[in-house]
């Protein structure tokens, strides 16, 4: 036990004296959360809009007012005719133009039909889509208002309600994602680098010749990272909670246990990487290409798995991060317990056991 404490102490010296490690451990989580939370977002705010009002009546004015009152749009310009629409797009700022037909109010009164066209700059298709949806919903809202006075006989009204994330805050998907990436980074990449560093420097040989057992060497090396990963997880959750109002609906204990499960799985991957790479650089490359890229691209963190090609959907199943993200979202947003997450949990446990066994086996072979 005393040996173990000495070992862990030494490991902390390595970490705290290395600026790069310190940055990855403490700078990175904060920077990532802030980046994803504030800068990279799927929501649209203050989008520049132009109006082409061919009718200029009381109705169109009301609609324009309600649009400019929303925080999503800013009316940037008024266009005189159709030809100017393209010119204004080419300038770049304006992302959408709202066109009212001639005699809009009159048509609405007599034919019960007013026509509006939304022209969007689709160089960024996602934004264009979102803008169209937002404007449609504002118009629908307006339509309902005027229908109260003269009710149409048959109407199907769609009232959608968004469970678990009613405001569609993108930060709600980013917090679990960033947490997964950071834990993977700290647990797998940092440990694999720190183990290979000992190999590279030749100190691993000294440790193997000493009475300390290989098992103790590995546990001594990974323990500090378990500790630091947990601190990181707490840090990210606190940031999410206080800065972005990310809720934690479910059980904190379950969240903690699942997090530790994922950390240990990642550590096992880290040990495995360190057994197959001889230098720190190799370990880093394998970690980045083999772990970080799949985690970011295939785990459902940024791109929804259901819209991936079938082959990639199958591949995503072998990525531990995918299951952890499902678990995190389940606990934090839906507030569900283990009875709903047992499948994902079992898969993670299975992966952990597999990677641990494999890394122990690989490590033993190396010693022969």
């Amino acid at each position: 036990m005393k040996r173990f404490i000495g070992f862990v102490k030494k490991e902390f010296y390595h970490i705290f004296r290395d600026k790069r490690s310190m940055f990855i451990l403490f700078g990175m989580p904060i920077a990532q959360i802030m980046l994803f939370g504030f800068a990279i977002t799927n929501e649209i705010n203050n989008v520049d809009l132009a109006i082409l009002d061919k009718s200029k009546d009381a109705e169109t004015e009301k609609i324009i007012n309600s649009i400019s009152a929303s925080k999503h749009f800013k009316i940037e310009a008024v266009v005189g005719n159709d030809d100017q629409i393209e010119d204004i797009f080419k300038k770049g700022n304006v992302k959408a133009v709202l066109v009212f037909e001639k005699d809009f109010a009159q048509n609405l009164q007599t034919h019960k039909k007013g026509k509006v066209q939304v022209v969007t700059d689709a160089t960024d298709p996602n934004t264009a889509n979102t803008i169209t949806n937002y404007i449609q919903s504002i118009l629908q809202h307006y339509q309902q208002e005027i229908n109260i006075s003269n009710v149409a006989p048959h109407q199907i009204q769609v009232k959608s309600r968004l469970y678990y994330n009613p405001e569609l805050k993108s930060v709600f998907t980013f917090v679990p994602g960033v947490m997964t990436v950071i834990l993977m980074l700290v647990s797998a990449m940092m440990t694999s680098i720190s183990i290979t560093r000992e190999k590279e420097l030749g100190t691993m040989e000294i440790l193997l010749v000493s009475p300390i057992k290989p098992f103790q060497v590995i546990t001594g090396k990974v323990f500090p990272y378990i500790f630091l990963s947990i601190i990181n997880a707490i840090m990210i959750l606190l940031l999410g909670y206080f800065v972005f109002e990310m809720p934690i609906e479910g059980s904190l204990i379950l969240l903690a246990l699942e997090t530790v499960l994922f950390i240990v799985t990642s550590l096992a991957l880290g040990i495995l990487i360190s057994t197959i790479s001889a230098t720190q650089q190799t370990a880093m490359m394998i970690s980045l290409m083999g772990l970080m890229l799949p985690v970011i691209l295939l785990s459902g963190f940024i791109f929804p798995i259901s819209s991936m090609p079938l082959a990639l959907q199958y591949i995503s199943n072998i990525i531990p991060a995918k299951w952890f993200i499902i678990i995190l979202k389940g606990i934090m947003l839906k507030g569900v317990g283990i009875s709903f997450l047992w499948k994902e949990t079992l898969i993670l446990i299975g992966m952990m056991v597999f990677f641990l066994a494999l890394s122990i086996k690989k490590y033993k072979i190396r010693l022969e």
Partner: protein
Amino acid sequence: MRSEKVIEVGNLTKKFGDFTAVKGISFEVFKGEIFGFLGANGAGKTTAMKMLIGISKPTSGEATVAGFDVKSNSEMVKKSIGYMSQRFSMYDDLTIKENITFFGGIYGLNRKQIRQKTESVIEELQLQDVADKLVGSLPLGWKQKLAFSVSLLHEPKIVFLDEPTGGVDPITRRQFWELIYAEAHKGTTIFVTTHYMDEAEYCDRVSIMVDGVIEALDTPKKLKEQFKTDSMEGVFLKLARGPLTPALPAGRPKGGIKD
């Protein structure tokens, strides 16, 4: 003094698949002896040494180190030996004191012993002014002397030195060998591999390995008589160019013969 055998090797063999790296070597090393273990690149020197220090399992044959069998009792072997590798083997980002504390700790020394050892090592090597400096800031010669002292922290019966003086100047090497002599004088057995032939002259006895076999083993003086040459360099070259082996592999940029 020559009575007690601390290393006994009998017919020790190591195979990697079809390739036999060590072909049934046998020798003995006595207490307090400085035993030089020489051989060219790929002669099997490092493989043989790894079996003796318990990190590689012999394919067949016997070896006892400090009275313990390396196959069945490698844990006890590890406790009885010290080891310093050719690559400088301490942590650059730890201070001298922290390194001593750490290595003392993994060899099971208690706090009081560690404190005493730290003081004596620092005093012996006159490192008082830099004791709290990171080891990375020390010159290589100092690091190697420190690494040697650290390998002796737990007062092992035998210390294995794998090319301990690689890359340092002759004066520092001379100082290093003074440390080795002093330690051997206390009764510690020194098992050293080297590729500097002048260092081979300092050893009490020298073994020369060629192609997995020990081709010669005696005092430097007798070896020189036997091979009718006036330096160990000459002995080595004659052996290596003997009928049993092809020419020496091309020398490394550093010069000398290295394994």
